[in-house]
């Protein structure tokens, strides 16, 4: 059984993840973050730090503001006319609202959406898009190598290596989701944000992607928004619990799942009593 769940990664060592300690440098610092759609607040007064090279889980029921939180981090609020963001988000110590080139910021942050978005181009072009956009003029060999590396890491290479020039939209849902992950990795991001990535993916693939995420943590910070509390338990070093637009609690995942919670609602959610 175990073999089934092994990563398709070439890495001979099984993926491990080590939690960065409390003294680790901060990748994302969020202070009093409030997000509104029109007058409707979807997230209020969130304050938390995300450490570099950490897998940071965010759990919570639907409508708790998890996705809006991610959207604020890579400034997708600019695409949504009625979305307003108050408070402060620092990325590598710099307030993201003082960034002049928002595209450069987004290139440092990879995003995987809940439903796979295979862009209407070939599999190869999907993965090669980000490097091409960034203006790094990679030559063919370098680009080929990058595409292969990203597809391998997303556990998709073996399935698509013979048809890299077929349309990405012809892949199955689960394959497209891994394509999206490969695409996000091709940005070589400092921060990877996954928003309920396993909704459209079968359990076996989910486990393979989880292994990949563990191995990626050496290179980047990962924010994992999930509606599966067990997924957070398996992967996240620390976990935040969002409820009704508020961050109820942030703690070491192990502690939260062993019942050391400050708030009764957190325990009830983790135990599956609501949500």
């Amino acid at each position: 059984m175990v073999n089934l769940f092994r990563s398709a990664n070439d890495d001979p060592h099984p993926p491990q993840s080590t939690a960065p300690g409390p003294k680790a440098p901060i990748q994302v610092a969020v202070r009093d973050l409030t997000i509104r759609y029109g007058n409707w607040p979807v997230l209020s007064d969130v304050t938390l730090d995300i450490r570099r090279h950490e897998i940071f889980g965010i759990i919570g029921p639907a409508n708790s503001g998890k996705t809006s939180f991610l959207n604020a981090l890579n400034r997708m609020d600019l695409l949504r006319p009625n979305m307003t963001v108050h408070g402060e988000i620092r990325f590598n110590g710099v307030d993201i609202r003082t960034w002049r080139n928002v595209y450069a910021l987004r290139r440092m942050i990879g995003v995987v959406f809940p439903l796979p978005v295979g862009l209407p181009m070939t599999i190869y072009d999907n993965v090669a898009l980000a490097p091409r956009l960034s203006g790094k003029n990679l030559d063919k060999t370098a680009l080929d190598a990058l595409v292969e590396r990203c597809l391998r890491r997303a556990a998709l290479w073996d399935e698509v290596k013979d048809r890299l020039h077929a349309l990405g939209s012809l892949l199955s849902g689960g394959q497209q989701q891994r394509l999206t992950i490969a695409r996000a990795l091709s940005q070589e991001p400092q921060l990877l944000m996954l928003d309920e990535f396993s909704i459209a993916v079968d359990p076996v693939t989910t486990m393979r992607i989880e292994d990949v995420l563990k191995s990626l943590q050496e290179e980047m910070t990962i924010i994992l928004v999930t509606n599966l509390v067990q997924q957070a338990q398996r992967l996240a070093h620390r976990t935040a619990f969002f409820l009704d637009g508020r961050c109820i609690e942030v703690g070491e995942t192990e502690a939260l799942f062993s019942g050391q919670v400050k708030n009764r609602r957190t325990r009830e959610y983790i135990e599956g009593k609501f949500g």
Partner: protein
Amino acid sequence: MAQPHPTQSGDHLDGQWYVDKLFHGLMFLCGISAVLFVLGIFLFVFAEGAGFILKSLDWRQFLLSPRWMPTSSYNPTYGILALIAGTASITFLAMVVAVPFSLGAAIYIAEFAKGRTREVLKILIELLAAIPSVVWGFIGLAIMNPWIIQTFDEPIGLNILNCGIILGLMAAPIITSIAEDALKAVPDTYREAAEALGANRWQTIAQVVLPAAKNGLLAAVLLGVGRGFGETMAVLMASGHSINMPESIFDSVRALTATIAAELGETAVGSDHYQALFAIGIFLFTITFFINMTADWIIRGSKRG
């Protein structure tokens, strides 16, 4: 055992069943009527031209001779090559004018314009599409004609340039609104995915949105071409209406459609000339049919892809 009576089993034809069947039949009639009308028009046009086409028409001369001299008393010739060249040159110039403008306008409306600007622009473009063609023809005669004479120092301003610009302006709103629909049909998730990868607005449009909408855009252009081929009144007024194999954009030309419009009223019904005009009609019908078929085929392709 005997079968129970259908009404006892609950299987009975109630009012709703009949209403459903009735509407089914009515909708079928409506749908099929479009086919009947097209067929009817084709048969009528063909029947009017049939005697001439089947008996005395020399096909090689009809398609390959530039001499359209139906009223010549000793040797009437029916060659439409000059007319085809006229229509083609006007349509080509019209597309050169219309396509960049229309695609630019469609991109602006679909991708950049917001709220009121967008609504106002859309209404204005629809208004532009609703201007009667004779008004465009009038603009060609009264405004473009003296302008071309002055600016380019030409003896006449009714020529390919005049007509092409007028026709381009006429086709632009149609191309714009269909192209805008095609761009709007590209899902927003594509745009968001591209922007999340760090693509700026222009990169998003050029590398993701336009390729995704390319079939719809091509169909929009083809419908514009169809419009150019079929337009009559504005072409009649602005082209100069003289039979010429065009050599420069300052040559006056004559279009297929304008020839029919101008001459049909002055021919004896059933004469060779009359029937030759119907032969032109059949030719136009065939061309527009193929253009529309191609556009339709491309749109289907875009839905499958």
